């Protein structure tokens, strides 16, 4: 008999989906807040494009993953 086939599961366990969604969205929203605070408090001369882009980039990655886990925990298996 062939050895029992290996079942394929998700790379992240199901039970973690809601927890991961909450934490990633929280971090993403905190970074978004920091991005907008930087924009509001800095003057035109002190602004650094690199800092803005990195904050925006990291915030969008966390928000993206957070939305994915939010959709998965709600039952919309994308």
């Amino acid at each position, binding site marked *: 008999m*062939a050895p029992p*086939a*290996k*079942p*394929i*599961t*998700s*790379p*992240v366990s*199901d039970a973690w989906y809601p927890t991961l969604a909450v934490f990633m969205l929280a971090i*993403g929203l905190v970074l978004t807040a920091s*991005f*907008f605070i930087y*924009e509001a408090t800095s003057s035109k001369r002190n602004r650094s*494009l690199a800092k*803005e*882009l990195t904050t*925006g*980039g990291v*915030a*969008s*990655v966390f*928000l*993206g*993953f957070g*939305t*994915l886990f939010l*959709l*998965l925990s709600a*039952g*919309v*298996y*994308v």
Partner: protein
Amino acid sequence: MEAPIRATEFLRFTLLSLLFFVCRSSPSQDLLISNAERRIDLTSHIVKVYLTLKVENAGSTPTSEILLAFPPTQVDHLATVEALVTKGKRKKTTLARLDVKPTELPDAPNGTKYFTIYLSNPLNSGESTTLEVLYLFTHSLEPFPAEIGQSESQLVYYRDSALILSPYHIKQQTTFLKTPSTKVESFTSVEPTNRAGTEMKYGPYEDRPPYSFSPILIHFENNSPFPVVEELVREVEISHWGNLQVTEQYTLVHGGARHKGVFSRVDYQSRPNLNGVSSLRYLLARLPPRVHSVYYRDEIGNISSSHLRTDSRKSELEIEPRYPLFGGWKATFVIGYGLPLQDFLFESSDDRRYLNFTFGCPLLDTVVDKLTVKVVLPEGSKDPSAVVPFTVEQHLETKYSYLDVVGRTVVVMEKKNLVPVHNSPFQVYYTFKPIFMLAEPLMLASAFFLFFVACLAYLHIDLSIRK
């Protein structure tokens, strides 16, 4: 010289004898059926025939092919044929694969159709073997009268032959028929015929020549509901994040005697044993274990008359249509459920993934006229191929679902005339690189990044007209 002449003569002799054996390979004259017993089960609307054949090789050449004959009218309603051979002393049954081949024999009388059983070990001359054949007929019980009122019981005709149709000589044969109740209006009598309770016995008949046929007609009461699913579309969506979503769309019809006259709900509910005895009240669906999010709805909305009982080995969904189905009445509904991915998706030895799922309708004891199974593979899957234990029509489609850019490949398989026996597993193989799973969150992240870039652009661009 002596030796070459002998060699050519020997060669000629072997060639001639080979030709002789090839010409004589038609098995009809070689095989002989010493005992045949046929049990026909008429209790439900699917006619089950169990045939036990004791085949003897009376010829001189070993054969490994045995022919089964069917009259042309019955072949259209034949859903499945299976053959088992009893081997050894401990009655270990092994399934001998049956080839569905309408063998066009040139001397087939009256358009008889054949099926060939291929034996795993050839039957030597003088040996005999016992074969158990099972075949199922759908739509073979004709309701007569064709239209009945609410308080009448359903009577049906069954047409068959008292003698088993076979291309071989049968030494002894008996046919038993089992009716669901003792009420039999009439039956053709072909001596010797006996009837006791719910069982009728035709036979034993001795020494009948090949292709002997004696038509019989039995008119009996069959109050089992005739659930026929006219069309069923099953969609299985695979998501690598851990879920298999199955959606099934049914078109159900009661295939028995058509209902005529009025439907009185008062009579139906007050005296259920007299009114609507053959109506379809509920259906049972057998689902895999660990099923979640089961829904049962139709175009109006959710249908609440259902019960789900789960177990560690199976789940049973009992559904009641919105109204009881009488003959000729239809109902359409959708059943959907989710399943954990690890029970059905596996990794094969050559680095491909495959889905192992059951082909067929989960409703018990129903006939499906046309079944379409669609397996939706995740985005980024390549080289799909399906392995199904019986013949189906396959083609590929594309479906656009959540977060899709290029679309998902769909493997579509179609089959006609299915019975619950067809609920066997099938596999769909495909290749998938796990890195493609990142495509979905990165798509979302890039959408959010676009928003941030738009904000930056708005804040940095100077749109004032005057300094």
